[in-house]
């Protein structure tokens, strides 16, 4: 088998983040090579480099043993690299043929030759078992069909190496089977495929080799037949680096947050919640974890009052909040920390003091007859600023001037200063440095020690293992299982995150590596 692609010691840094660290990776003809790793492991960056959408800081690329520079997508396509993005690059209002043909010139230029293209499309479909309806409008197609169109589009342009980014994330199990059949025939014809995924089952099923990435580095490249799910899971998740935070033993009280069989519909089917039941008690932190895109966002939006539950019930301290709007949740004093600091957490052009008082400005202490009482508002802002150690030149500066960590402190202060009985925090430390992260952890733990019920939604396993008392894993909109944190291990969590139910895990699952629980300060 000839070498098709070789990426040698590729490195790429973004501000503050080493996305790809000296990655070496190769693909042979007639091979399906899986690229495995969690969110943020560096897979997307690497593929963007391959497809000419990003330039590496250092490293070389070789195509068929000849060194190449790929500066634009056009050049990548010219070499024979086709990319099927996670978010389809298809135009919904156009037909399949129009999408495939866009930007290409034919013998009949400048006129469109849709009939001829449709014919060639059908030939390709036959050859690889890709059923596409040439004259259908893309917007009428299911996601599985749209994905087939993306694949055909790449093949139509002569792709020899196909890159698929999390292809089964949007497919039903049946459609996934169809996809694998197509990949099989591609392989048989000598094409190569880079299959990016976090799903171990599929990786084991379809690939010849697996390269595991973690935190921008290659952990290992192995032959699929030589490895196992457990080994892959461990490599993918790894040994957590422990942040030193003190955690007292948990003394939970009554259930505060109760989610019963929640079902939330979303425009995009993969973000749906399909029947989640959770219960968070006073004085405990329950972490809901899983790979991003498995329903967390919709659930959080429902808990924030921004989206309605299609079925099921959510209650806080016994009050049913399934139909509540955000205003009601403010009145009920539920602390909400959204995952997107810049759009949902803060109104960036407004001052810090205005952001801090965004929920309370109508209260009698801060507002009399519709007129704001500047004194008390500023006093509150100053007090919160010092309590939560918000570093800023003053409370009047726009929130956009603050660093990410301090911005998050503002959000935290706003959510928690009224001593809510329940707090819902979504990815609260995303993009924060170690110091800020530590601060957030301490705040959440302090709240928990005070008897607050904290629901933490996070994709960061280390954070989850460090902070929580119990862990629930969500996959495809359902809870795969719940474990006590002190009994959890990464292998088990990794497998649940990848789709195995807790009850289906082998009983004698020996953790390949245990982790040290968060210990006290040295």
């Amino acid at each position: 088998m000839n070498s098709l692609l070789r990426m040698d010691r590729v490195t790429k840094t973004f501000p503050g983040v080493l996305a790809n660290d000296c990655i070496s990776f190769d693909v042979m003809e007639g091979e399906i090579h899986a690229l495995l790793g969690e969110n943020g492991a560096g897979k997307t960056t690497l593929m963007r480099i391959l497809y000419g959408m990003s330039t590496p800081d250092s490293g070389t690329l070789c195509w068929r043993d000849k060194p190449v520079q790929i500066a634009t997508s056009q050049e990548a396509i010219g070499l024979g690299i086709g990319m099927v993005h996670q978010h389809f690059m298809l135009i919904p209002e156009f037909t399949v043929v129009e999408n495939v043909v866009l930007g290409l010139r034919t013998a009949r230029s400048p006129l469109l030759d849709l009939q001829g293209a449709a014919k060639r499309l059908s030939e390709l479909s036959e050859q690889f078992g890709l059923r596409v309806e040439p004259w259908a409008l893309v917007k009428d197609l299911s996601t599985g069909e749209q994905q087939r169109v993306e694949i055909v589009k790449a093949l139509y342009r002569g792709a020899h190496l196909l890159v698929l980014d999390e292809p089964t994330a949007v497919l039903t199990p049946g459609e996934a089977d169809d996809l694998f059949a197509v990949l099989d025939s591609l392989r048989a014809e000598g094409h190569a495929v880079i299959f990016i995924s976090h799903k171990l089952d599929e990786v084991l099923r379809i690939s010849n080799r697996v390269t595991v990435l973690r935190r921008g580095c290659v952990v290992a490249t192995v032959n699929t037949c030589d490895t196992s799910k457990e080994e892959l899971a461990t490599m993918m998740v790894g040994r957590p680096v422990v942040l030193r935070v003190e955690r007292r033993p948990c003394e939970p009280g009554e259930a505060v947050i109760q989610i019963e069989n929640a079902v939330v519909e979303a425009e995009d089917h993969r973000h749906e919640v399909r029947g989640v039941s959770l219960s968070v008690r006073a004085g405990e932190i329950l972490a809901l974890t899983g790979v991003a895109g498995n329903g967390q966002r919709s659930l959080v939006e429902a808990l924030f009052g921004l989206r309605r539950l299609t079925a099921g019930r959510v209650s806080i301290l016994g009050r049913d909040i399934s139909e509540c709007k955000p205003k009601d949740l403010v009145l009920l004093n539920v602390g909400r920390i959204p995952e997107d600091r810049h759009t949902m957490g803060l109104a960036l052009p407004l001052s810090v003091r205005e952001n801090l008082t965004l929920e309370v400005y109508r209260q009698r202490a801060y507002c009399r007859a519709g007129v704001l009482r500047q004194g008390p508002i500023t006093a509150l802002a100053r007090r919160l600023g010092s309590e939560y150690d918000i570093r800023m030149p003053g409370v009047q500066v726009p929130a956009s001037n603050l660093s990410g960590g301090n911005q998050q402190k503002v959000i935290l202060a706003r959510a928690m200063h009224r001593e809510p009985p329940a707090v819902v925090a979504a990815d609260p430390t995303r993009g924060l440095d170690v110091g800020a992260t530590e601060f957030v952890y301490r705040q959440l733990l302090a709240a928990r020690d005070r008897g607050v019920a904290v629901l933490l939604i996070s994709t960061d396993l280390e954070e989850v293992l460090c902070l929580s008392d119990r862990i629930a894993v969500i996959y495809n909109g359902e809870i795969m299982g719940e474990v006590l944190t002190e009994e959890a291990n990464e292998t088990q969590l990794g497998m649940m995150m990848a789709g195995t139910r807790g009850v289906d895990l082998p009983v004698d699952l020996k953790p390949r590596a245990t982790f040290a629980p968060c210990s006290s300060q040295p």
Partner: protein
Amino acid sequence: MPLVAIVAALAVGGVIMALVGVAPLEGYKALWRGAFGGPSRMGVTVTKATPLILAGLGVALPLRCGLVNLGGEGQVYIGALAATLAALGLGDLPLAVHLPLVVLAGFVGGAVWGAIPGWLKARLHLNELITTIMLSYIAFWVVSYLVHGPMKDPGGGGYPWSVQVPDSARLPLILKKYRINLGSLLALASAAAAHFLLWKTAFGFEMRAVGAGPLAARLAGINAERTTMLTFAIGGGLAGMAGMAEIVGVQFRLSDFFSPGYGWDAIVVAMAGQSNPVGVVLMGLFFGALRNGAESAARSIDMPSSISLIIQALALLFIIGSNSVVLYRRLRRRRVSHAGDSASAVLLD
């Protein structure tokens, strides 16, 4: 920096003056004299600035809420109509009673005309671009119809204008030497009120929050729909007052083309003034001076008065242009690439 943009616009204006054979310095001197040469000229400047300030506020407040009010012209006309109807139709009333009612009518008329697109946007999600412009023209033609027909002054020489409004409904002069009427004071007061509303009240806070961070405002429980509708109504009301001030303060009768485009100029005034009531007052005065100066100068030197429109439009273009993020990015990138090109140096920030 809007100041830089304005200076640039004035510079280009100077070039245009040169092109038609007027030495730029002479031209601007004539403009200055036209706008500020003597008490009556200054008074006209202030009087011309008055509707610009009011209508400018009518665009600035919705802008703070993230809305572009393109219907100012229509709101001006309906406000003027409502004020005229109140002036003519309320019979014999003392000034102290009649005038406030007239002012109120002007506000309410404009507010209703502003509430329509506000409602259409909030409930039916209709883009305010089309709705406001259509309503503007409808308003214009309705007034046109009225002054050519039912409201036409039978003893008015056949011109399409209404009967003159009674003395009890006229805005009195407050500075006789300058011939500045109460309308200008109302404009200043409105600016102060707008400032108070925006910065000191809970509703103003909601307006700004919805404009600055709609998602965050929603999360915090603010009702964006209601805020949108009310803001549009208030903006319309202020523009309506501009129409009122022009009729019962200056022209004293409703006529066909009474507004030389105040509603459109208001957009320039609001943006140049950074949607800030103080800025709006300053820009209103500036553009009022520009217009007045140009009109007076046209009589003395050989330069069409529309130079003021050109400068105004250029100022707006330069202001928006300077706000371009892309421009900012390109300039930054150029600075960066000069700073020694190694992989790590590219990653600033």
